[in-house]
């Protein structure tokens, strides 16, 4: 149908441009603590604040929108690729400012997440984003959280200026390998993506020095940068993905790498056969678990996966899998093992590990204490001893433990000492001998 497009209402624009932005995963408002200066609106808290949860269970913290869904690129996985016939529209900087301010003052959101399709050229788009942020910060006096995309290929001066207005910046690497990128996003290149990432990293490093010298120096991307990868659009294995993530953390000081299960929005022959169970959510979940192991548990990608086992187990989480492959290190003595080793025990997290280290200074820990500390005993019991004793007789055998972890629905096996009570009913077989056993 040919018709001249009339000016769209704000309502229609918001619908289109938030719908187009929803495949971006990052919606965190964390990483920066800032009090309001009393002359505007807004503050930030380090832990971040989620304001709502959408029907897919993901948090809504920021007003996540595109500046425009017009795009000169033709990436195969994207709804807004230039060869798709979809309604195109753009916000004006003022649209975005009023929306952000009005939503923010009703406490709907924690700030703005601004991404964009490439309108005309990367420079032109980046400039529009900069103008919007400038208005929001200096005309509307907004002091809440802003997450903005750095457009690959844009002039570094523009990125620098924008970085002083935003809290977090991100450039999406999109796909774990350069090969995949070439195939699915012919207009983007690895180099183009990594250049702004490196630039932001250097900027942050330089800014840290400035801040130590001059306390009131302007902050450059204070909440760090993040990136995102699409999972399942190419044949890349989990090992590839995780190694890429690890390299990004190590070489680019990223705060977060996000994984996004591929949702096929376009039909295209380049994608692997799409299964009918929907997006690979479990795979995404396993990758996030492994990502946590990299960032907080001192694991390395090569420990979790290798060329021979390039994918995660669907039944067991990565930490359990690792422990089962390294049974020679277990069981670990809770009262003596060092912190790093405690972190590697399934069922013990960062908090429990540090609580254990603190609490065992006071005296020997027993299994009952571990439960109070917050250790997940149903998983940990196969891998730990307290004062040389295991919680219940188990075999240190891969098959045996795997079976137990899976079969009992992760419950503590019966007879595991005093921690296991059973509700008596009138109709229980009241054999006194048996009853005594249960209550032991």
């Amino acid at each position: 149908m040919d018709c001249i497009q009339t000016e769209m209402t704000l309502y229609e624009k918001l619908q289109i441009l938030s719908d187009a932005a929803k495949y971006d995963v990052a919606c965190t408002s964390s990483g920066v603590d800032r009090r309001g200066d009393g002359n505007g609106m807004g503050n930030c808290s380090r832990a971040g604040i989620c304001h709502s949860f959408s029907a897919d269970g993901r948090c809504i913290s920021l007003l996540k929108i595109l500046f425009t869904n017009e795009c000169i690129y033709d990436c195969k996985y994207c709804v807004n690729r230039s060869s798709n016939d979809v309604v195109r529209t753009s916000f004006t900087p003022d649209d975005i400012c009023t929306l952000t301010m009005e939503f923010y003052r009703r406490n709907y959101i924690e700030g703005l997440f601004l991404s964009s399709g490439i309108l005309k050229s990367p420079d032109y788009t980046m400039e529009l984003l900069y103008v919007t942020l400038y208005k929001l910060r200096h005309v509307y006096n907004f002091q809440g959280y802003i997450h903005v995309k750095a457009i690959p290929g844009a002039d570094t001066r523009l990125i620098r200026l924008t970085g002083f207005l935003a809290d977090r910046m991100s450039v999406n690497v999109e796909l774990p390998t350069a090969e995949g990128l070439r195939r699915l996003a012919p207009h983007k290149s690895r180099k183009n993506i990594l250049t702004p990432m490196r630039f932001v990293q250097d900027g942050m490093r330089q800014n840290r020095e400035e801040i130590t010298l001059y306390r009131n120096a302007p902050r450059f991307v204070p909440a760090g940068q993040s990136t995102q990868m699409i999972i399942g659009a190419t044949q890349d294995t989990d090992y590839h993905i995780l190694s890429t993530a690890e390299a990004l953390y190590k070489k680019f000081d990223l705060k977060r790498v996000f994984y996004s299960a591929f949702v096929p929005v376009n039909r295209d022959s380049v994608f692997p056969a799409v299964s009918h169970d929907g997006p690979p959510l479990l795979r995404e979940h396993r990758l996030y678990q492994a990502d946590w192991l990299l960032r907080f548990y001192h694991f390395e990608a090569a420990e979790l996966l290798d060329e021979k086992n390039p994918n995660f187990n669907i039944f067991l989480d990565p930490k359990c899998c690792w422990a089962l492959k390294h049974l020679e290190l277990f069981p670990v003595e809770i009262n003596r093992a060092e912190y790093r080793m405690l972190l590697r025990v399934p069922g013990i997290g960062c908090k429990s590990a540090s609580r254990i280290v603190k609490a065992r200074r006071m005296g020997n820990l027993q299994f009952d204490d571990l439960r109070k500390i917050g250790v997940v005993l149903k998983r940990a019991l196969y891998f730990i001893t307290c004062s040389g004793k295991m919680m219940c007789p188990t075999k240190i055998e891969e098959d045996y433990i795997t079976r137990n972890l899976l079969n009992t629905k992760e419950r503590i096996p019966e007879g595991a000492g005093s921690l296991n009570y059973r509700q008596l009913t009138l109709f229980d077989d009241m054999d006194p001998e048996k009853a005594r056993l249960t209550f032991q």
Partner: protein
Amino acid sequence: MKQVYICHDTVTGIYSALYDAWKESRNREAGIELRGKTQQQLFCEYRIVEECEKKVPAVQRMIKRYMGYNTYWDFYLAILSDDNEKGDAVFRTMQEARRIADSTRIMDHLGCPAVAKVFELSRRVSNEAHIYKEVIRFRELENGVLFSEISPRTKILACIAEHFADRFPLENWMIYDKTHKAFLAHRAGAECRLICGEELNKESASRISANQKEYEELWKAFFESIAVKERENPKLQRTHLPKRYRREMTEFS
């Protein structure tokens, strides 16, 4: 005989009871109960506490001095909770603190049931306060005031005041706690005020400004379109956002 002090369920009330109890019976068994929620027991002597504002800072000062600021804060939060034994728990924690070498570390002694109770209550209140920082929704009234109604289980208004005052310093806003009939009111450029015992004027609270409806619609549209249909997961949504909070949220109404 055990002495039981009876006071109102207010911050002033409980601190006054603590004042009296500490003054007279810190060396023996005593209890603090809330008026209207007492359970008569044998071998107890009941007394109604004379509540006054002067007793509050005196007790607070003592807690801060001997047990440290963090403990003071834990006590304060516990007193805001909805538990009937909160006064008792705080009093017994104070008694316990005298028995240990370093009273400032009393909150680490979770082995003591009273301390564990105070810890749990304090956590409950601060968790609820955090949730309400997230889910409070303001609506703009005709006169430009941002207004919100909430129904929390504990008295969290005092805990969220600073957050919102810092966030909206130039706005007139007001939060009404339906459960406890209390207001938190903030005038542009001024301090927050906590007002108890006033009734809400429903009529003026329902007169919303001209474009309030529009922004509600915009927000609802955003809320709808941001969800990825292929990933729909109501159970996960419910874990993160229990249904009782949704009653007062714009996007679910």
